């Protein structure tokens, strides 16, 4: 069945589409409303797939009880949200997300997280200079970080991880977008951006871009968006199944058990493959958002097949890459490009890795309350950063020459293999407890011979 046309849809849409003098925002809204038009047959197909997926999640014990609850709420909310008039959809989703927090989390944690979120909103919405709003935001974060570090605030212990999972990065994106927007912050988009149902279960969450989320809202036909979301959820599910298997195989390789080169190679490769856990979860999260019309981009794309470090950076965590581009790379680049375009690009790339290196302990701090900065983390980001900057420099200074097809293909395969091996090796450093234990892992097989 074709999507509903203007005549078949609600009155507002009909007027909006026909009124040539309407402002762009209204025209865009009317277009989105058309994309969200329901279709019984397609709804049944989506609902049937979700029911099957839900059964599969249960059959494979995909996550814990909280995940099961969250999935039921998401799929149930989808069934209601789908049939609601367009103007009520976002408000309903916000209400379902806020209400869902009380079902999924301890009610004290839910209440405090929502209260903290509203305080952040009020600060960012305040009719004062942006610098003052930012100061208010820093104050809230400062107090809560003190609480997270010392546990001296009268907040439930589960609060900090959930608060961090929701606000630690996205608030940066949101504040950035608000600072560049002529419109003031609005409550419903704010709630739908931060209070996302899967975030209550998955504190490690993709850094969704606020603008991309708003822009993608019903930008395509609703069923296509939802279907893509289901496909990604399925892909995420398969990745999580594989993750468990990899975890199982890797478990046997305690450092003192790595007594052959084969065992060393196996554990290095398996440690890198464990990233499927992150990728699988991100697919499920973004897939769920697709059910509500948010046509978000892929979070990870065939990263094990990257043909170079820049390519890998673009694929392995696309949302993180976009987050860094927006908040670090472009600001740095535009500030320094007068001193030379190439130097500015190299500098911006280096800045991205310095900031990434700093933000990972910040993430660890919020999610598990660990303040330690590990040397292995710093060395990992240093190696990765230097490697990417060197690749940028090489790519810029060495133009590729034309080659026969077989040579191009062979080169491509070699590049993929080399990138994988290189990443797996430095990933094993990142996974190691300390530099010394990584060195022990790498060399023990020689001593054991």
């Amino acid at each position: 069945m074709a999507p509903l046309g203007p005549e078949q849809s609600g009155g507002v849409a009909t007027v909006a589409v026909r009124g040539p003098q309407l402002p762009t925002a209204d025209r865009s809204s009317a277009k989105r409303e058309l994309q969200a038009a329901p279709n019984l047959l397609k709804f049944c197909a989506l609902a049937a797939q979700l029911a099957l997926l839900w059964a599969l999640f249960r059959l494979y014990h995909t996550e814990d009880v909280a995940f099961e609850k969250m999935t039921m709420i998401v799929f149930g909310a989808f069934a209601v949200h789908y049939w609601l008039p367009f103007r009520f959809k976002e408000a309903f989703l916000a209400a379902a997300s806020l209400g869902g927090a009380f079902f999924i989390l301890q009610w004290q944690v839910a209440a405090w997280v929502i209260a903290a979120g509203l305080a952040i909103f009020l600060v960012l919405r305040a009719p004062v200079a942006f610098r003052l709003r930012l100061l208010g935001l820093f104050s809230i974060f400062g107090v809560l970080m003190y609480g997270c570090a010392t546990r001296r605030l009268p907040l439930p212990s589960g609060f900090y991880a959930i608060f961090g999972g929701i606000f630690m990065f996205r608030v940066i994106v949101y504040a950035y977008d608000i600072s560049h927007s002529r419109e003031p912050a609005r409550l419903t988009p704010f709630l739908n951006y931060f209070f996302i149902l899967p975030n209550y279960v998955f504190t490690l969450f993709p850094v969704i871009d606020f603008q991309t989320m708003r822009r993608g809202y019903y930008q395509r036909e609703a069923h296509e968006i939802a279907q893509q979301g289901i496909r990604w959820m399925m892909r995420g599910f398969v990745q999580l199944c594989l993750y468990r298997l990899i975890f199982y195989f890797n478990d046997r390789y305690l450092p003192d058990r790595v007594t052959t080169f084969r065992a060393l190679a196996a554990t290095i490769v398996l440690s890198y493959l464990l990233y499927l856990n992150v990728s699988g979860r991100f697919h499920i999260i973004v897939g769920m958002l697709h059910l509500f019309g948010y046509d978000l981009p892929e979070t990870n794309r065939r990263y094990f097949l990257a043909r170079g470090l820049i390519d890998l950076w673009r694929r392995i965590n696309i949302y993180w890459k976009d987050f860094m581009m927006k908040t670090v790379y472009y600001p740095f680049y535009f500030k320094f490009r007068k001193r030379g375009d190439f130097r500015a690009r190299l500098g911006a790339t280096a800045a991205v890795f310095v900031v990434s290196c700093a933000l990972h302990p910040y993430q660890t701090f919020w999610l598990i309350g660990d303040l330690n900065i590990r040397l292995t983390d710093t060395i990992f980001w240093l190696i990765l950063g230097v490697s990417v900057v060197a690749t940028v420099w090489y790519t810029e200074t060495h133009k590729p020459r034309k080659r026969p097809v077989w040579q191009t293909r062979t080169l491509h395969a070699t590049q993929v293999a080399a990138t994988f091996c290189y990443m797996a090796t430095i990933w094993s450093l990142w996974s190691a407890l300390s530099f010394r234990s990584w060195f022990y892992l790498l060399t023990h097989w020689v001593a054991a011979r």
Partner: protein
Amino acid sequence: MKKVGGSFWASSGVIVLAVLAMAALVPAATVAYRISAGRVPAMWVAVMRSREIMDNAGVRGYYERLMGKYGRMDKIYLYDNSFRIFRLMPNLTWQRDLITTNSFGLVGPERTLEKPPHTRRIALIGASLDAGQLVPEKQIYGQLLEDRLNADRPNGPGERFEVLNFSCISYTLPQIVDTAIEDAPRFDPDVYLIDVNELAASTEWSRHMVQITQQHIDPKYGFLREILQKAGVSATDSTDILYGKLAPYRIPIVQGFLQTLEDNIASRHASLIVMLVPAVEAGELSKQRVDTVREVIRGLHVPVVDLLDSFREYLYPAQLAAYPGDIHPNRRGHALIFQNLYTKLHAQPEAWRALVGQGPSRAPAPPQ
């Protein structure tokens, strides 16, 4: 934005087929598990279905640390500056995890310090699997063993058996050994049943050494003091650094503790039986982990009762867990461990003799 995938209906069809295929793997694996060639792939399917593997301490990558589950159980322990750091509180009734202790802090019913006449005492020492976390006291395999021995009376009607359960949740091998050396002898046991489970062998094996180093607690045992010195551990090191420094010394430390245990119990003229008790995990995770110290265990001159195959009949052992995703056995799991233990004790004359002594009886029929 780039449009991904084909048409709506084609994509729906693919998803339905994929879901059905994944679902079909579950019964297919059950069938395959019964055939020897299909056993390993079937176990892989079981691993893919296992929730518990996610929460059980294992691999320690950056993201695994972030997504790990961290719990505290401070309310059930007494903390001190001793080598063991903590022990179960006496007279504890911990409803949530169904743990009750007597006035000595031992799991189970009240006991006397002095051994009653005509009683053979068995000291059961292990961790949460042996303490019966999440299982009613009377269903713990140690209690089932006591009940069975008292029903069978292998040493004649005049002699009773008592199983004193010294196990403590979260104990690793050094704490288990220290309990056997320091606490148990006060009760004059005749036999020591020691569980060397995966906590002694997997990533968590050095947790206790990390804690004593951080808390400036004396390593107490000469060999341990030497190894810690050699490893260069320091109280100022972070937890991760300490784990890293200790990693190469796993086998010497496990060996040192088991040897100390064997020597100490031999000097008391008591018997020692080492048990390998499984957690409820898909695949052969428990076995895989314990196998890493198998050589050390073989080096002991004591009977070893391998119970790691207790759940072998269950491809999906989740039904034997205390709750979905947990590694602790439920009542049925404890019953299976007990049956396996009793059967294997019978099958190993040396172990049976160690258990019941040199009494007049022959071994009764194994349990059905």
